[in-house]
C-alpha cells in the first residue's frame, strides 16, 4: 500500500517514517491516513479556527472535545455542536442525512448529555436532481430524529446552483446534562477496560473520512465512493439509553463515540485527550460478517457504536445494563500508561505506534498573518447602491415565492418538533424556545447561514451569519451563551477557496469578538467542489441562549388592530447579497459590511426591550427582508387583521431597497399605542435608530404607502409555495 492509497502526500509519509523511525505497515499507514485526513485533522482549518474567540463566563468546555459545553444555570449544562454530512448525502441522501443526525447526536451523548434538540441546515442546487436530493435528505433527517425521539426545533434551507453537486447537510444537536454527570474522552485512566458498545462492526464506509470527505468529486469518481453507511435509529436509541444510564450510574471512566475513521479515531482521541496509551484485541470486536481484516476493523465507520473506558469492578453492572437492552457490550482492550497504542489481531501485533502521533502530530497548515489581517481592511462602500427596480405589487409576490424566502413548512412538518414536551416555540418561529423541566431557565436556539451574503465578500458573510443568529436570540430577550460554527468550503489546496474560507472565519471571529459570544466548537467540511466548481463559502451558525420564563417568550407577531409597528435599527439602503437582489440581477452582489459596534448596541438594546412588559412582539428581519418578515407576521397572527405601512422613502426604487434588504440586526417591533413613547425613548437613549412603520389594521390586507395593496390570502399563497417548483 502506498501513501496516496490512504490519501496522504509523500511529505506526510516521510514525516510518519521519521516519527516512527521505520516504515509503517499497511495497518499503521491506514491509521495515519484516516487521522491525518482533512476530515479528522482539520489540517487546513485548525490554525484559522484557533483564532475564533472561545472563552467566556459560561463556557464549561471549549473546542476540541466531542461538543462544546456551556452552563445554563447552577445545575444544568448544555452540550451542542454542528456537524456536516455533505458528501455522503450526495451519494445516498436518505442514509447520508440519517447517519449525519445519528453522528452528531452521539457527539452530544459522548459528553454525558441527553440530546433535546436538533436543527437542520441544508443547501441544495436548483435543478431537478436537487429536488430529489432535498426529498431524500429531509426524509433521512426525519427518519433518524423522529425515531430516536429528539425534536427538530428549527432549521434553515437555501438554494443556489453551486450546491447542485455539493449539497450541504449540516445538523446541529443540543443536549443537557446535570453538572455532576460531566464526562468526556479526557478522563480515561490506566487499568480501565476499553469496551465497545452497540452495533457489530461491518464493512461500512471504510475510508469515508480520508477519501470521501477529503477529496473533491470529479467526473468518474464513482470508484472512490465506498460502501455507504446505514443508520439504525432503533439501535441508536438503545445505545443512547444504555450510555446515559451508565453515565448516570457512575459506571464510566471516559466516553468517546465512534464517527469518522471509526475505532481508529475513537481510540486515538481517547488516548490523546486522556494522555494514556491503549492495547486493543481486534479478535474481541464483534463482527457482522467474517473475514474483516485488521485494517477494515480499525477503519470501519459502522454507525451506532460507543467506546467506553470502564473500571473492571464496574464491568458487570455495565454488562447487565447492556443485556437488559439487548445491546452488545464487548471488552476489546485496556487503557495503559504512557501513550503507546498496541493493536493485536490473530495473536499478532498488527500495529504499534504512539497515539500522540495520530492526533497531536497531525500536520497543520500555518496561518499567514498578512492574509488574516488583510480581510479586516475597510472596503470602499459604493456611493450609489446597486440599482433596484421600482416597487410593485408583483415584486413582493415574486420575492415571497423565492426558494430561500418561502415557507419552510413543507420541510419541517416532516420532523417531530414537539417530542420531549419542551418545545414552547418550534420551527414556525425564527427562534426556537425550549423549557427545561426542573429549571427556571429556558433555552433559545437560533441558526443562520445565508451564504449568498458571503458569495462576493466572505468576510462580510461570516460576520453577517453570526449577527443574524444573535439577532434572533435578542428577539426573545435571550442572553447568548455560546455558538457553534459549521464551515463548508471548496478545495483548500486552491488559493481562492482557502482564502474565502479564511475570510469567512475572520468574519466570524470579528463578529463573535465584538458581541463577546464564544464559539465553543464546530465542524469544517472542505472539498465541496465538483469538476473544479466550488460552493460559496458557507457557514452555518448555531447560537444558544438562556432566557428566563421560557413558558412565555415574547410573541413574534401582532394580535389586534391599533398596535404600532417599528423597524428597529434600519439598515442603509443597500440590498447586495439579498435573495431579492439575486433574483433581480441573476447573481449575488456584495453585501454591505455590517457596522459591528452599532450591531452590538442594537442587539443589547433589543434583548433588554424584549424583557420589558411594554414589548408586545418582536421579529427578526430574515430572508426576503422587511417585506417577507411582515408577511410572516401576518401568516402567524390574527387572520382578521393586516398592516398599513408607511415607508419614509419616497422613490419607488428606495422603497424596494427598504423592503428587501436583508441586512442582519433589524427587527420589527409591535407596541400598543400608549407604549410608543416608551419604545422610542428606550432605543433613543441607547443610540439605536428606529423607524415608525405604521399600524395594525382591522382588514386582512397589507398596504404600503397607500399605493400598494395585497390581500392576506394572496400573500400567503405566494409564500406557501411547495419546493417542487419555482414560481415563474
Amino acid at each position, binding site marked *: 500500500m502506498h501513501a496516496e492509497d490512504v490519501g496522504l502526500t509523500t511529505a506526510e509519509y516521510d514525516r510518519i517514517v521519521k516519527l516512527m523511525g521505520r516504515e509503517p505497515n499497511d495497518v499503521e499507514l491506514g491509521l495515519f491516513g484516516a487521522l491525518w485526513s482533512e476530515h479528522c485533522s482539520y489540517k487546513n482549518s485548525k490554525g484559522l479556527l484557533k483564532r475564533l474567540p472561545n472563552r467566556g463566563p459560561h463556557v464549561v468546555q471549549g473546542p476540541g472535545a466531542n461538543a462544546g459545553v456551556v452552563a445554563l444555570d447552577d445545575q444544568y449544562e448544555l452540550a451542542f455542536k454542528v456537524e456536516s454530512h455533505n458528501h455522503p448525502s450526495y451519494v445516498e441522501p436518505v442514509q447520508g442525512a440519517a447517519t449525519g443526525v445519528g453522528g452528531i447526536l452521539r457527539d452530544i451523548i459522548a459528553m454525558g448529555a441527553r440530546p433535546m434538540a436538533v436543527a437542520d441546515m441544508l443547501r441544495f442546487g436548483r435543478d431537478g436532481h436537487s429536488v430529489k436530493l432535498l426529498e431524500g435528505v429531509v426524509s433521512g433527517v426525519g427518519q433518524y430524529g423522529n*425515531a430516536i425521539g429528539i425534536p427538530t426545533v428549527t432549521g434553515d434551507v437555501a438554494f443556489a446552483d453551486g450546491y447542485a453537486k455539493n449539497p450541504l447537510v449540516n445538523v446541529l444537536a443540543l443536549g443537557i446534562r446535570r453538572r455532576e454527570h460531566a464526562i468526556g474522552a479526557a478522563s480515561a485512566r490506566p487499568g480501565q477496560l476499553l469496551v465497545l458498545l452497540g452495533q457489530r462492526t461491518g464493512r461500512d464506509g471504510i475510508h469515508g473520512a480520508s477519501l470521501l470527505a477529503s477529496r473533491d468529486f470529479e467526473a468518474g469518481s464513482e470508484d472512490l465512493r465506498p460502501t455507504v453507511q446505514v443508520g439504525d*435509529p432503533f439501535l441508536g436509541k438503545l445505545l443512547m439509553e444504555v450510555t446515559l444510564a451508565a453515565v448516570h450510574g457512575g459506571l464510566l471512566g471516559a466516553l468517546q463515540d465512534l464517527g469518522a475513521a471509526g475505532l481508529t479515531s475513537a481510540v486515538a482521541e481517547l488516548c490523546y485527550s486522556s494522555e494514556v496509551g491503549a492495547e486493543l484485541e481486534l479478535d474481541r470486536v464483534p463482527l457482522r460478517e467474517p473475514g474483516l481484516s485488521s485494517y477494515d476493523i480499525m477503519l470501519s465507520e459502522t454507525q451506532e457504536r460507543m467506546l467506553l473506558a470502564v473500571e473492571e469492578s464496574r464491568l458487570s453492572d455495565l454488562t447487565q445494563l447492556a443485556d437488559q437492552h439487548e445491546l452488545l457490550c464487548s471488552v476489546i482492550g485496556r487503557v495503559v500508561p504512557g501513550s503507546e497504542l498496541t493493536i493485536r489481531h490473530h495473536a499478532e501485533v498488527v500495529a504499534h505506534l504512539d497515539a500522540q502521533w495520530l492526533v497531536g502530530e497531525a500536520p497543520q497548515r500555518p496561518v499567514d498573518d498578512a492574509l488574516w489581517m488583510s480581510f479586516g481592511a475597510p472596503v470602499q462602500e459604493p456611493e450609489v447602491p446597486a440599482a433596484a427596480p421600482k416597487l410593485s405589487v408583483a415584486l413582493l409576490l415574486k420575492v415571497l415565492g423565492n426558494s430561500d424566502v418561502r415557507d419552510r413548512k413543507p420541510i419541517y412538518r*416532516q420532523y417531530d418538533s*414537539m417530542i420531549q414536551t419542551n418545545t414552547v416555540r418550534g420551527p414556525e418561529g425564527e427562534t426556537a424556545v425550549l423549557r427545561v423541566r426542573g429549571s427556571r431557565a429556558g433555552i433559545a436556539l437560533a441558526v443562520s447561514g445565508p451564504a449568498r451574503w458571503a458569495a462576493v465578500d466572505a468576510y462580510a458573510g461570516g460576520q453577517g451569519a453570526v449577527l443574524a443568529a444573535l439577532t434572533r436570540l435578542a428577539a426573545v430577550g435571550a442572553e447568548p451563551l455560546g455558538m457553534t460554527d459549521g464551515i463548508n468550503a471548496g478545495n483548500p489546496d486552491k488559493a481562492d477557496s482557502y482564502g474565502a474560507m479564511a475570510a469567512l472565519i475572520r468574519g466570524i471571529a470579528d463578529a463573535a469578538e465584538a458581541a463577546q459570544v464564544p464559539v465553543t466548537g464546530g465542524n469544517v467540511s472542505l472539498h465541496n467542489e465538483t469538476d473544479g466548481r466550488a460552493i460559496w463559502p458557507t457557514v452555518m451558525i448555531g447560537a444558544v441562549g438562556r432566557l428566563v420564563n421560557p413558558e412565555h417568550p415574547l410573541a413574534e407577531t401582532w394580535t389586534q388592530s391599533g398596535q404600532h409597528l417599528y423597524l428597529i435599527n434600519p439598515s442603509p439602503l443597500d440590498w447586495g447579497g439579498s435573495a431579492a437582489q439575486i433574483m433581480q440581477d441573476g447573481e449575488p452582489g456584495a453585501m454591505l459590511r455590517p457596522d459591528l459596534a452599532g450591531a452590538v448596541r442594537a442587539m443589547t438594546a433589543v434583548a433588554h426591550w424584549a424583557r420589558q412588559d411594554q414589548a408586545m412582539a418582536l421579529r427578526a428581519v430574515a430572508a426576503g427582508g422587511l417585506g417577507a418578515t411582515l408577511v410572516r407576521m401576518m401568516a402567524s397572527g390574527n387572520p382578521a387583521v393586516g398592516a398599513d405601512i408607511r415607508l419614509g422613502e419616497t422613490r419607488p426604487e428606495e422603497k424596494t431597497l427598504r423592503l428587501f434588504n436583508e441586512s442582519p440586526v433589524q427587527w420589527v417591533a409591535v407596541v400598543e399605542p400608549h407604549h410608543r413613547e416608551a419604545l422610542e425613548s428606550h432605543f433613543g437613549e441607547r443610540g439605536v435608530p428606529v423607524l415608525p412603520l405604521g399600524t395594525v389594521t382591522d382588514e386582512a390586507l397589507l398596504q404600503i404607502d397607500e399605493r400598494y395593496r395585497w390581500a392576506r390570502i394572496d400573500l400567503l399563497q405566494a409564500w406557501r409555495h411547495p419546493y417542487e417548483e419555482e414560481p415563474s
Partner: protein
Amino acid sequence: MSVRIGVVTFPGSNCDHDTLWALDELGAETAPIWYRTEDLDHWDGVVLPGGFSYGDYLRSGALAAKAPVLGALRAAVQTRSLPVLGICNGFQILTEAGLLPGALRPNRHGQFRCEWDTVRVVEQSPWFPGLTVGMRLRLPIAHAEGSYYVPSGQLGALFQSGEAWLQYVDDAGRLSPSINPNGSIANLAGVQRGSVAALMPHPERAMASYLGSDDGRRLLGAWVKGVSQEAIHAR
C-alpha cells in the same frame, strides 16, 4: 387513594417519559413497565406510549405486538377489564395485537407528519367521564403510519357499536376530507373496544397552553378519573 398507572417501555419507545410526566402532573401514581414483564396485577391502568418500538421496522407496532407484556395485557383486559390507553405507536401495537379493530397504514401522502389537529369526540366512553359527544380537542400528531383502515363493510359496524371514538375535524368541527392529515377512513383518529382505547394524536404533548394547547390534559385527566373510579369500584 391514588390511581396506579403504568407506562410500557418497549425497545424504541420514545414518548414513555413524556407520558409518565403528563400522568404525574395529573396526580397518578406512575412507573415505567418493562416490555418483558408478564405480570400486570399491580396496575389499575396501563398506557402503551408513542415512539418507534423496534424502529417501526416491518410494520409499525408489528414486532412490539409479540412482546411478552402484550400477552399479560390481553389476559388482564379479558379477565378484569384492565383499562388500556394506546397513544400513536401504542395504537399501532394494539391493532397489531388484535386488541383493537382495524389497522394503521402509511399516511396517504407517504410522509411523516407533525402538526396540530382538531379531533371531535364521536362516542361517550365510561373510561373518559367528562369527554362528551361533540367535544373538540386540539392535539398534535406526529406519525408516518396513522391512516386508519378497516375493510370495506366494517365501517358501519364500527360506528354502530360505538367503537369509533375520535375523528379529525376542522376548526368549526366539520368532518372535512381536506383536514384529514393521513388519509384515515372516515377521518378516524381514535377507536375503542371494551376497556381499551387508543388514538394517534399525542395528548401528553398538550398539557399546557404554552406547549400549544391544554386539551391533552383534559383527555388524559378524564381517563385518569375513569380509571380511578373503576379502581375504587374494583377494590
